[in-house]
């Protein structure tokens, strides 16, 4: 087999034993890699119905088909487990040298089972596995942990994925970090913490065997050249953070916990402002010629020394959505999240829920007591120190508020409403328990559907349905009978990239056209040159459909029903008040109508279940036997 080793490594932390599983080539043809393979491994290895923080929930890591090859932006891996936030599939991606090391060590994937009694770090040295005492690493931040491991081995080719204090404290917003990048969403870090797994390190010394190195190198070179030209210029110069002003102008920028879509001080927390005043450098993921990540550095003031990786989603969540207009404080809050191992998006949205709850008089200053502020603090919108302090409290579950917010908006609001007889769920901005992204769905009707039906919840990466809305390909303020198909197409398009996985920012660099006709033939060539297969255009479509289907199947088996495809109360009941999207909501009737269209477009039943014959046609016979109807 080319491009794959054919081997999955299973590591049991309870017994400290390992085993090797061989997979046939046909299995790889269906699941490929990234989030699809990781989700399939989760399907095969989870104890169905288990608590996400129980030993029966495996950590499933799947490498990238192109990791360790010449293919640009192919240095990514996928990770999946049952999400501690949603109770459904939690899948995440990260661009990382960890992915390259995994491949070079001769593994297509790793499944971590069980739970350790003591804190442990696991070292995979090609085909050897060592369990190491992780006690010296406890409490360390994510970059500090990686540096300590490199120092311990005296080898910077030992690549690690690790959790910070947030994961150690089972914070449901915790992520997994590698090379400064994150497998960021759905609370994977808490799953690692529940197993007392602080770090997984890999050293790989083998090459990656591909079927047609000459062709692969030629296509890679052409794509790499294009990736350094105008198609990616914006990413290189400003990164995604330039979306702050774009979304503000469109009335879509989540502001003060999604109470508005326009922030009066957006300029002060924009990508353009970052570029002019705080940008230290740009960095790149593994195998990436684009280098989109903007690093912000605070040189003076109370947050001097903060240095964080700044993306749009981090900026909206911890900036305008918390009412902050102080870029230095936002960089500090992002830096804290990066080092503590917290998802910036879920953390920011959870803090903004607490701030609104405070401003409505339900929380008081005393609820915010902590070691730094023994009498508590005012948690009104715009209070920079409150946001920065809350990131610290959440990561360590410090005090009443730290422990509460560590649960995320859905659980925190349910607890408060039960204890105090309130209705804070009305401003708990999550979808299926995962905090919402930086695009207010009230002004993006197709994306409202894409997010509601999304298998991992409040996410902008798995459904790309905001793109046709924002680009004006459809009317973003209204609903029509095309939207089910548009949502299906955009999520399956995104799933192709997430499965290989390659970064979506490369999508225009194959031919200049980002759509299927522009990208699929080149992607098929890359896959064929790597594996020796003979995939065609239609097969690339199938990659996306299968990836999405296995995740949906996982959710169905865990108890998903149609009513889970829902949106936050606010988006249904409170019209936008300011800006270009003012006056709009997504009515429940609109959403239910679009869900009908979407399920039909997917070939599913009106209840959103998957027919057996559909699953069999996708090569998922065993899945059909379990959940097909």
């Amino acid at each position, binding site marked *: 087999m080319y491009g794959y080793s054919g081997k999955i490594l299973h590591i049991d932390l309870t017994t400290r034993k390992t085993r090797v599983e061989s997979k046939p080539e046909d299995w790889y043809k269906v699941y490929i890699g990234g989030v699809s393979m990781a989700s399939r491994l989760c399907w095969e290895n989870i104890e169905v119905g288990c608590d996400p923080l129980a030993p029966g929930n495996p950590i499933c890591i799947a490498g990238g088909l192109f990791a360790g090859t010449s293919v640009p932006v192919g240095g990514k891996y996928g990770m999946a487990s049952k999400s501690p936030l949603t109770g459904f599939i939690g899948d995440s991606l990260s661009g990382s040298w960890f992915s390259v090391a995994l491949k070079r060590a001769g593994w297509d994937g790793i499944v971590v089972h069980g739970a350790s009694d003591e804190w442990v770090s696991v070292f995979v040295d090609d085909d050897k596995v060592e369990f190491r005492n992780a006690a010296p690493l406890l409490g360390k931040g994510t970059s500090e942990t990686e540096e300590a491991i490199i120092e311990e081995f005296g080898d910077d080719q030992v690549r690690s994925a690790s959790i910070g204090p947030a994961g150690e404290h089972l914070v449901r917003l915790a992520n997994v970090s590698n090379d400064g990048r994150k497998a960021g969403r759905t609370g994977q870090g808490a799953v690692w913490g529940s197993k007392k797994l602080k770090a997984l390190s890999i050293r790989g010394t083998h090459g990656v065997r591909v079927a047609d190195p000459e062709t692969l190198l030629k296509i890679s070179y052409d794509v790499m050249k294009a990736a350094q030209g*105008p198609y990616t210029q*914006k*990413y290189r110069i400003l990164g995604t*953070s330039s979306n702050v002003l774009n979304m503000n102008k*469109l009335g879509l920028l989540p502001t003060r916990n999604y109470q508005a879509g326009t922030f009066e001080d957006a300029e002060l927390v924009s990508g*353009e402002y970052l570029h002019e005043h705080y940008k230290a450098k740009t960095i790149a993921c593994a195998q990436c010629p684009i280098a989109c990540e903007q690093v912000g550095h605070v040189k003076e003031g109370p947050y001097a020394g903060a240095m964080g990786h700044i*993306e749009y989603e981090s900026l909206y969540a911890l900036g305008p959505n918390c009412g902050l207009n102080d870029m230095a404080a936002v960089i500090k809050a992002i830096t804290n999240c990066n080092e503590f191992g917290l998802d910036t998006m879920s953390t920011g949205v959870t803090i903004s829920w607490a701030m609104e709850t405070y401003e409505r008089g339900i929380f008081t200053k005393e609820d915010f007591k902590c070691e730094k502020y023994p009498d508590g603090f005012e948690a009104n919108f715009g209070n920079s120190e409150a946001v920065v302090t809350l990131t610290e409290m959440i990561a360590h579950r410090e005090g009443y508020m730290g422990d509460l917010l560590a649960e995320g908006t859905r659980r925190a609001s349910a607890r408060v409403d039960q204890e105090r007889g309130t209705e804070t769920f009305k401003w708990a901005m999550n979808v299926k328990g995962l905090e919402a992204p930086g695009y207010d769905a009230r002004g993006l009707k197709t994306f409202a559907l894409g997010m509601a039906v999304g298998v991992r919840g409040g996410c902008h990466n798995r459904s*790309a349905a905001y*793109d046709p809305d924002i680009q004006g390909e459809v009317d973003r303020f209204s609903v029509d009978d095309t939207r089910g198909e548009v949502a299906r197409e955009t999520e399956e398009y995104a799933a192709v990239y997430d499965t290989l996985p390659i970064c*979506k920012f490369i999508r225009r660099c194959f031919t200049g056209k980002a759509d299927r006709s522009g990208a699929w033939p080149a992607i098929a060539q890359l896959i064929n040159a790597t594996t020796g297969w003979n995939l065609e255009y239609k097969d690339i479509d199938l990659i996306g459909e299968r990836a999405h289907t296995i995740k949906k199947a996982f959710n169905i088996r865990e108890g998903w029903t149609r009513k889970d495809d829902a949106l936050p109360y606010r988006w249904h009941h409170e019209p936008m008040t300011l800006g270009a999207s003012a006056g709009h909501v997504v009515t429940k009737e609109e959403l239910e109508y679009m869900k009908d269209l979407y399920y039909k477009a997917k070939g599913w039943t009106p209840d959103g279940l998957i027919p057996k014959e559909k699953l069999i046609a996708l090569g998922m016979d065993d899945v059909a036997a379990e959940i097909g109807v």
Partner: protein
Amino acid sequence: MRVHVEFLGLARLATGLKELELDLENGATFRDMVRTLGTQYPALIGNVIQPDGETLQHPNRLNHNAKRIVQAHQMDERPSDGDRIIVMSISAGG
């Protein structure tokens, strides 16, 4: 006719301006407007505006009154006096 033009992202970096008032001939189209901008701010050519001087380079877009993106096939439509045009470069992800 006068339109209000705002520059975001790459357009702002190229021009060094956040916004300006742009005078156009009565009946001017969006294409005419882009041509005028390219003439007045040559740094936009190759960065934001295609070398042809009259169409935008991906991922730059014209937004009309914050309500709609002017599509390639709509470049011969006409803005009205007092309209707000945003030159923006939209990207996904983050």
